[in-house]
């Protein structure tokens, strides 16, 4: 702050010189508004900046003079010799105050008073204006203080708000910082496309904010817009300020369930499968119809095609949702398993379950049973210690096996974790060397060694002893999960247990995808992971100095160019498009030649030959009969990072299973 103050002092001295010369000129030509304006500006800046840098006395004094010159500007006061003389005296006084501020002498405050009294007399009216108040103290919103209560906020920005630089998204983001925010967008005011002005804001928001912050803090978020927008902020329930327990809602839900027996019927699973198959066929045919309609530029055919597209889309969603089942029944079945196994092995084990309401396609659930049984068995057999050993290790005698399910984009994650002894990394390593999976001198991280238990052929020959940890048939589990187009991860903490994570697709049949083109080839990215699409010009590439980084509204997003990743031939176009997707590793972009649009994607399996190609989760048939590969963005990113992270040579040395999918894909892409 010190150097800012010095900057102000220097500036104020210059301004005083300016003020003086303006005053002297004004004495010559008393009605020149330009000169009055100059004097006013000088005083205005002294006042404004003075207050900014802590010179309240100077600021307050200059304020009165500024007011006088404001009156002059507006013609409410005329320039007189007295006024000019007084102003010159005032300028001298300000100079003295500046000197006093730098420690040179002291300013005579009574002189200031005398000048101001005289000024008041000259202005002819008692000075009603307040001098500017000192800087308002920072009123931080009372975050989290006070009881949390719900606020109902209705917010409709002015139609021109976007043009004025207001970003409603930021306002919502700011509210979110105050507490938990539920957002409902009111799109009713959006006109038809032909009448829509893309620069106008047609949206309104109904928000429920649960916060302990003061109402003033909420209103403060809208301070810049509240004068020209529709805004109401009300407590959601004035009678009960504290958030009511969700009991009311729950009972409402339960009521119809009581009489629900009549509204549901039992249908054989076969019929449902048949329905989904038919819908799949319909979607494929629709894609063909769409292609035909696009070719014949006939608006009538196109309208019909679009209508059918909408219908198939909702038919698909509907029939898929019929097949969705909660995992609860599957999870609950394992209680018995855990109980029986515990008795058999003389171990006390408790099964805890989380996210049992997560829904998955019935076909996925059906095939999930065996892998899960296997994993739980493994945990109890090899991971969890005997009660005596647990007590000796300072753990509770009763062990826990935890089953958890949660959604993650188009996937469901299922975790099986135990609090047992964890994997014996050295034993796994020794075993892998023995089986020829890695070479003896291989440098591997612990995580890499742990993942070796998933490698094909690892300890299938004979059952591992207790000492070597476990790994009974983990590759069988892996094969099962991969048959479901899922993937498997293992994490182990010595002494604290093992967690196996299964990543499964929500459905095996049809997904919403985004069709993209690279050269002559088509790919589909799952829409559920896709965030947005941005353009990448040669200029952007130059600006990134050769790094694969895209600037997405000021944020750097690394991208993978599919053309390079798959080593495809041909020139990339001048303008590429980058699809930004959300992965476990953060946001990543995929650079493609063109993003063609969303696509209802019927997933076809690729067959056994391509089982090792992890980055492709299947294929689909487009309207014109061409095949598009469905990419698994998660796997593409993690494999790209692996390739980046360490040289292929090193991997070869380590003797890990060859995972260079790029080669495989380029070789195998053609014959599909």
């Amino acid at each position: 702050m010190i150097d800012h103050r010095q900057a102000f002092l220097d500036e104020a001295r210059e301004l005083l010189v300016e003020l003086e010369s303006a005053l002297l000129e004004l004495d010559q030509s008393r009605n020149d508004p330009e000169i009055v304006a100059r004097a006013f500006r000088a005083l205005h800046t002294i006042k404004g900046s003075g207050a900014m840098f802590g010179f309240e006395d100077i600021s307050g004094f200059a304020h009165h003079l500024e007011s006088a010159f404001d009156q002059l500007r507006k013609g409410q006061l005329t320039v007189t010799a007295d006024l000019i003389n007084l102003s010159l005296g005032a300028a001298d006084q300000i100079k003295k105050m500046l000197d006093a501020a730098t420690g040179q002498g002291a300013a005579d405050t009574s002189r200031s008073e005398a000048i101001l009294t005289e000024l008041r007399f000259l202005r002819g009216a008692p000075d009603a204006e307040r001098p500017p108040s000192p800087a308002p103290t920072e009123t931080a919103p009372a975050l989290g203080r006070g009881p949390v209560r719900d606020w109902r906020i209705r917010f409709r920005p002015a139609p021109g708000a976007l043009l004025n630089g207001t970003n409603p998204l930021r306002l919502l983001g700011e509210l979110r910082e105050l507490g938990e925010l539920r957002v409902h967008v009111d799109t009713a005011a959006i006109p038809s496309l032909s009448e829509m002005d893309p620069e106008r804001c047609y949206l309104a928001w109904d928000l429920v904010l649960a916060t302990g912050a003061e109402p003033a803090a909420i209103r403060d978020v809208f301070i810049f817009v509240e004068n020209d927008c529709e805004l109401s902020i009300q407590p959601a329930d004035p009678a009960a300020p504290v958030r009511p327990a969700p009991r009311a809602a729950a009972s409402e839900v339960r009521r119809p369930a009581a009489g629900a027996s009549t509204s549901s019927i039992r249908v054989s699973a076969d019929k449902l499968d048949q329905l989904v198959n038919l819908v799949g066929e319909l979607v494929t045919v629709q894609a063909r119809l769409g292609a035909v309609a696009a070719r014949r530029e006939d608006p009538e055919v196109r309208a019909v095609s679009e209508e059918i597209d909408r219908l198939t889309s909702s038919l698909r969603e509907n029939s898929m949702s019929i097949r969705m089942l909660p995992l609860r029944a599957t999870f609950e079945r394992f209680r018995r398993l855990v109980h029986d196994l515990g008795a058999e092995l003389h171990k006390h084990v408790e099964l805890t379950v989380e996210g049992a309401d997560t829904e998955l396609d019935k076909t996925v659930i059906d095939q999930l049973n065996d892998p899960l049984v296997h994993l739980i068995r493994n945990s109890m057999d090899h991971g969890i210690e005997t009660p005596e050993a647990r007590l000796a290790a300072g753990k509770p005698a009763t062990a826990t096996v935890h089953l958890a399910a949660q959604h993650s984009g188009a996937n469901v994650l299922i975790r099986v974790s135990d609090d047992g002894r964890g994997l014996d990394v050295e034993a796994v390593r020794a075993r892998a060397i023995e089986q020829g999976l890695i070479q003896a001198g291989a440098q591997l991280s612990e995580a890499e060694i742990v993942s070796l238990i998933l490698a094909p052929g690892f300890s299938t020959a004979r059952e591992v002893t207790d000492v070597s940890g476990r790994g009974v048939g983990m590759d069988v589990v892996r094969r099962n999960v991969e048959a479901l187009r899922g993937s498997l991860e293992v994490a182990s903490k010595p002494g604290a247990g093992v967690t196996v994570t299964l990543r499964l697709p929500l459905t095996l049949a049809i997904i919403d995808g985004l069709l993209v083109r690279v050269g002559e080839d088509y790919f589909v990215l799952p829409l559920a992971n896709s965030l947005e699409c941005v353009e990448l010009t040669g200029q952007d590439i130059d600006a990134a100095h050769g790094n694969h980084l895209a600037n997405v509204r000021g944020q750097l997003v690394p991208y993978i160019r599919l053309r390079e990743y798959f080593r495809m031939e041909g020139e990339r176009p001048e303008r590429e498009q980058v699809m930004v997707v959300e992965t476990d590793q953060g946001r990543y972009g995929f650079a493609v030649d063109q993003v063609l649009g969303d696509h209802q994607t019927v997933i076809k399996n690729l067959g056994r030959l391509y089982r090792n190609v992890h980055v492709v989760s299947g294929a689909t048939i487009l309207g014109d009969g061409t095949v598009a590969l469905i990419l698994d963005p998660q796997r593409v990113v993690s494999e790209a990072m692996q390739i980046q992270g360490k040289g292929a040579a090193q991997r070869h040395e380590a003797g890990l299973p060859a995972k260079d999918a790029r080669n495989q894909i380029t070789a195998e892409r053609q014959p599909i």
Partner: protein
Amino acid sequence: MRVLTHSPVSMRLEKVLSKVILAVDDSASVRQMVKFTLSDAGYTVIEAVDGKDALTKLTGPVNMVITDLNMPNLDGIGLIRGVRANPACKGIPIVMLTTESQESRKQEGRQAGATGWIVKPFTTQQLLAVVKRLIG
């Protein structure tokens, strides 16, 4: 890929890609304070001494304008109108620096298309809060 984002080249990139703020004030000390505060927070600050000067500096990419109202040659209101008339600057946030006695000027500024305002005297924290609110 991740590693790249921390390389020196990328650091430079961050600089190139950092948000640009045009600070317009005839008071050098206020400009200095604005520049100091915002540069410190990672923004790139361009200075202009009045509205006219500011309009000539709007040729490159600018993410936000902070302007005083009382300035020679072209005042803040005139500048706001000028910015809003420039199609390249559509929708960028404009914040005006006002004093408490300028309520009517504030209205005028809003009608001209200002996004928000900061009342002088302000602290560096208040300035940063407003900038963060508008461009993040």
